[in-house]
Each structure stands twice: as structure tokens, then as C-alpha cells.
């Protein structure tokens, strides 16, 4: 006896951090040469990250690899050299300085710079999730109320509540207009937008007699 519905809720907040996947990739004739150059470049990139506001504890190496690189054209395998890659994930908590930081990374690492993407987020999602959960509950309740009314019942208490999904939602855009300070070189425009989390509930309601 009862009504079972799902409820979905979403909550949004201005992002307070951005994660950037950045690194260097160096090709050289020997592993030793590639390693040496990669180390230099990686240090330069790391310094740029630190100078740009990234805390040392917010930087983590995500990949380090050494591989031979071949050219397979002309029906032959020809050794081009050795590729050393060093990638870090850097968390920047001042999202407004993302554009300038990307620019200084590109300058620091030169042509060996690689940027694999970025994503904005909220460092502590607890209160955001609580708001999304409340929205999900309200959604489930509204659905159940409508179904109770349609079927000529009065909705009773919830008998089973199951949180089925919780996680980042579709980010909604919202701009933080702080990267507009123009230098002689136009800095990379970055729009942090808004971070979003979502919660889904499965709720079973009883009927009130």
C-alpha cells in the first residue's frame, strides 16, 4: 500500500577551486637528455604554478613516463628518440586567476608545455549536497502529493527513503568577472561558471486512512 516515487534535486554554488591537468612532454635523443630537460621544464612549470597561487599540497604528480617514440612511415620503424612526460594535477583556490596562471604555465614550459584540461568545483560539497538533498525530497513529495490527489488518497508518512545517486551535476554557467585586467598581451579568458551537485532519492509513502 502506498506510492513510490523518485525525487531529484540540484544545488549550485560559485566554484571555489579549479583543477588543472598540466605538465611537460620532452623528446630527446637519449633517455638521459630527455629526463634532464623534462626535469628542468617541470620545475619551471611547478614554479609558475606556485607563483600563480597553487599551494604545494595542492599539487600532485599524476603521471610520469619514459617511452621510446617511433616513426612508422615509409614502411619502416625508425626511432625518433625518447619521450619523457611529467604531469601534475594542480588545484587553484583563487579561481579568478586561472587565465593568468595558464598563461604563465605556457611561458614557463615553452613548447614542451602540455595542458590536458581543467575543471571547476567546490572544495567542500557537504552543505551543497544537503541543499540538493532537500530539493530532491521536495521533488519526491510534490510528485507523491499529485499522485495521491489523482488517486483520491491522502498522502501518509514516508516509509522507505533511499538515496540512490549523489554526485556532481551538470555545471551551470556563471561568470566571475575578474580576468578582465588587460596587459599588453591579452590573457586567456576563463569563465568559471557555477558548480552543481545533484542528489536522487527513491521514496515510498504510505496512505493516511
Amino acid at each position, binding site marked *: 500500500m502506498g506510492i513510490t516515487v523518485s525525487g531529484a534535486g540540484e544545488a549550485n554554488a560559485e566554484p571555489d577551486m579549479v583543477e588543472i591537468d598540466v605538465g611537460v612532454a620532452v623528446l630527446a635523443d637519449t633517455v638521459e637528455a630527455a629526463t634532464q630537460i623534462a626535469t628542468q621544464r617541470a620545475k619551471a612549470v611547478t614554479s609558475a604554478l606556485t607563483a600563480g597561487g597553487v599551494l604545494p599540497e595542492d599539487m600532485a604528480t599524476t603521471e610520469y613516463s619514459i617511452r621510446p617514440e617511433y616513426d612508422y612511415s615509409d614502411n619502416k620503424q625508425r626511432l625518433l628518440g625518447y619521450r619523457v612526460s611529467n604531469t601534475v594535477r594542480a588545484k587553484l583556490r583563487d579561481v579568478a586567476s586561472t587565465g593568468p596562471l595558464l598563461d604563465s604555465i*605556457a611561458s614557463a614550459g615553452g613548447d614542451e608545455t602540455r595542458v590536458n584540461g581543467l575543471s571547476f568545483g567546490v572544495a567542500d560539497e557537504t552543505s551543497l549536497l544537503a541543499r540538493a538533498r532537500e530539493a530532491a525530497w521536495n521533488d519526491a513529495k510534490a510528485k507523491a502529493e499529485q499522485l495521491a490527489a*489523482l488517486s483520491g488518497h491522502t498522502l501518509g508518512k514516508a516509509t522507505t527513503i533511499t538515496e*540512490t545517486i549523489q554526485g556532481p551535476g551538470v555545471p551551470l554557467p556563471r561568470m566571475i568577472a575578474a580576468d578582465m585586467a588587460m596587459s599588453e598581451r591579452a590573457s586567456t579568458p576563463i569563465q568559471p561558471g557555477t558548480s552543481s551537485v545533484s542528489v536522487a532519492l527513491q521514496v515510498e509513502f504510505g496512505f493516511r486512512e
Partner: protein
Amino acid sequence: MTWTTHRRNIALIGGLAVLLAACGTAAGSTPQEITVNTSEEATSGISVSGMGEVTGTPDTVEVGLGVSVLGETVDEAATTAAEKARALIESLTTNGVAEEDITTTDYSIYPEYDYSGNEQRLIGYRVSNTVKAKIRDLDSTGAVLDAATVAGGDDVVVNGLSFSIEDNDELVAAAREAAWNDAMTKANQLAELSGQTLGEATTITETVSMPPIPIPYAEEAAVDRAVETPIEPGTSAVTITLQVQFGLAS
């Protein structure tokens, strides 16, 4: 088959449907508790599903677009990309896109190689800066895209667009009512066919509540550059499915 076992089968099928529905809702998520009604009253009655679909007109369109610049050095490509991206974003805001509706979705720097000929040859470095823009005045979509194309020139990239209904509460409620009416009609017919009178609904489960699925269609692409790019929002559908168990009036 006796009547008793027949009724049990109906209840079993009903329970299975609830189970499947619960699994469907939770697809790709953590396992959840599934409650199957095994009480005595659930074993007697009529179990049907009802579906309701309501179509609405999209009120927003989200466009993925940006710049992708190839340069001889990372520095050169990054500088040009910054200029172009700035021009592109300015063209968006000039054409009515709110700044809070523009968000950066990707920024990347990669080398680009040419694999033709006899060897792998470095062509340069590609810097990409991609944003997602939400256009709320659908009539301006073509003009916004055209202006972005002009601003970004040959470095502009458009990754596609999708229409949606931002505020679809009324649509969903209408779809739910249609689903209920559908279930009632089916149950009434089955009660009549079996020579019984339909009782109250004892269990109602909303099994599927799909987000609006855009059904876009585009007109023939304009050849004449003086003509604005035609964009057609089409319609979006909201579907609700209910599983309803009715009792039988004695």
C-alpha cells in the same frame, strides 16, 4: 490453472515490474533497497502500467563553441588563442548571451603532427579554449552563432548544440496526470472484462521520469552568407510511466 494461482501470477508480475523499475531508476548508481509488497491485499487486484507523454517547446539552447589555434610555438598559439577567445566571448555577450551563462569547459595545449610523407613532422602547437553558452532567446541562436564565427574566424570551433526546457514542472505534472488516466483506463477495462468493479489504487510507483529528450531538426544549411544560419528548436518530450496496483471492490 486455478483462479488462485492466476491471481498470484498477476501479483508476481506486478512485483517484478516494481523491481525492474527500481533497477532502471538506479542504473549506474549504488545498489539500493528494493521493497516488494508481499502483504495479503497486494495479491488480489489489477496491476497495470500507465504512460503519459507531453510535448513542449524548448526555451533554452546550449551551444558548445570555442577557438582552436595552431601556432609555431606554444607561446604564439596561446597568445592568439587568448585574443580569439576574448573576441568570441565578447561577440556572445554583445549578442545577448548573459555572462553568467558562459562557462569554460576545456582548455588544452598539445603538439600537432603531420604523418603524411615519409616521416612524422611537427606542424606546431594547438591551443584550444572551449566554452558552453546558454542562449535563452532562441530566436537569436542563428545570429549568435554567426557573430561567433565572424569573431573567431577560421579558428572558431562549434561542437554542437542542444535544446532543453529549463522550467518543465508544469509539463511533468501534465505527463503524470496523463499517465494516471492511462492506467485508470486500462484497469477499468480489465475490471469490466473480468466482471468486477475496480477498487482503490493500493500501490502507485512512478517508474520512469525521463528528462526532456530534444528532438531537434535543422533546415537546409544556408549557402548565401548574407542569410542568417537557420536554427530550429523543434520540440522536447517529457515522459512519465506509472505502475499502478488497484484493488477490487467487493
